[in-house]
């Protein structure tokens, strides 16, 4: 799978950003996206988008340390 991921990543980077692999290591990093994809697959369905507007900054405030 990682070879396919590397090849597809190369196409994506070229097509969307006009960027070519800068060196041989780039292919290894791109192939490493297979692990990222697997991680996303594992958590599919765990969390849903919230209907109401929110933000991470609001969550920081909601969950912050309260001084007595």
């Amino acid at each position, binding site marked *: 799978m990682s070879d396919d991921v590397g090849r*597809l*990543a*190369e196409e*994506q*980077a070229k097509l*969307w*950003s*006009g*960027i*070519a*692999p*800068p*060196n*041989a*290591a*780039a*292919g*290894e*990093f*791109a192939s*490493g*996206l297979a692990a*990222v994809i697997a*991680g*996303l697959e*594992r*958590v599919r369905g*765990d*969390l849903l*988008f*919230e209907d109401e507007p*929110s*933000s*991470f*900054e*609001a*969550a*920081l*405030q*909601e*969950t*912050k*340390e309260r*001084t007595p």
Partner: protein
Amino acid sequence: MTDVAARAWALTRLTLVEAAEAVRKGEVTCVALTQSALDAFAAGDAAVNASIALDRAEALETAEGLDRLRKAGRLLGPLHGVPLAHKDMYYRAGKPCTCGSKIRRVFRPTYTATAIRRLEEAGSITVGALNMAEFAQNPTGHNAHFGNCRNPWHTDYCPGGSSSGSGAAVAARFVYAALGSDTGGSIRLPAAMCGVTGIKGTQTRVSRYGAMPLSFSADNVGPLARTARDCARVLRIIAGHDTADPTSATEPVPDYEAALDGNLRGLRIGIPTNFFLDGADPEVLAAFEAAIGVLEGRGAATLRIALPHMDATNAYAAIVSRVEAAAIHAQWMRERPQDYSVHLGGRLYAGYAIPAVHYVEALSRRGPILRALAREVFGKVDVLATPTIRREVPTLAATDIDAGAPGAVEAMSAISANTRPINYLGLPSVSVPCGFDSNGLPIGFQIQGRPFAEARILNVAHAYQQDTAWHESAPVLHMKGAALTRP
């Protein structure tokens, strides 16, 4: 050693707070402190390569001016006369700011970072700019353009990154503290690997104005220093809202230093049962458990607890900063790809293939995951403790991607396994030295709290340092390597 040299060496052994106090009392001049810092760089930096540029003449001139002020009975602030140096990504008007890169080798910003300005307004003297990972993007200390920074405890080993020079310069006793930046662990990793204390505040706690951007969602500005008290003093100065950075928090900044009472009675410490200890080296685990024992000895209670959504946290944390960095670097990646190191060019490249839909998904889940953590974990414990790094400090050779070291990519990404999720969650986190491995390299553990719980986690770190001496250990530098001293 002459009496003069011995006195200069003794000055470098002070903590930041002790140095500032000595100036305040008139026991030492700002010039003497600054000269001792410059002498320490001159004597030891050939071994460590912690600096990129030093401003000797300007630093001494500033010190002379501060001495005149003090003689006139005026102190600028709580860092009056204290020499510092910072990661070379903080803009200072008219000064070169390389960001550890070839691309910005001749970059001269026209304005000064808010954190630097606040430190200088508090009386600190900026003696120079410190080595760092190219554009703050590796956890090891490699730098293909300015030379690798080396661990002062053993120069074959990684100092940690990306704030490599900050960790090495503080550990080597060149300066009393240094700013680093932390997007996935870049303050805490060099703090742990070099045996010093380093804190990243809550996301948005410190202004990022004038700090080279890497990831707008995860970048943090913070100090590395010798003690939790030193970090508390620096953080109080740099924290707080800044109109130049509208994303900075308006939350009031407490007096972190005044809150350091070392009292842990009633404190509940959570130790994650999932993820953070997976595959940890036995020596790291032993040092971590011993550290927990010290905190229990001060009256803290511990609870082994599972953290929710760690798979999701890791999956999403791997995306956010990678995509944002790729976006920031897109133009240079098109026009000057040859000017990046092999490692960074490859690392950035992968970011262009991640679909935007997953980036948005990753950002949208931050709040819900943080709320779940607060509900399920911070309802039961006050802080979380984990090793900062699960493995022993690796060598520079074993993690040298540019040289094609086998397994280097995996070895490098494993370094930040315990720190990266904390950035995604936006929590404050402090790394504290807690021992040495069998290679003589430091081990650290990190303490996390709820958002804006910097005072609490600094007090836990301070309490630990009241009963241990790891933070007082300093390496003995030699020109061709480094010998060890242990407490």
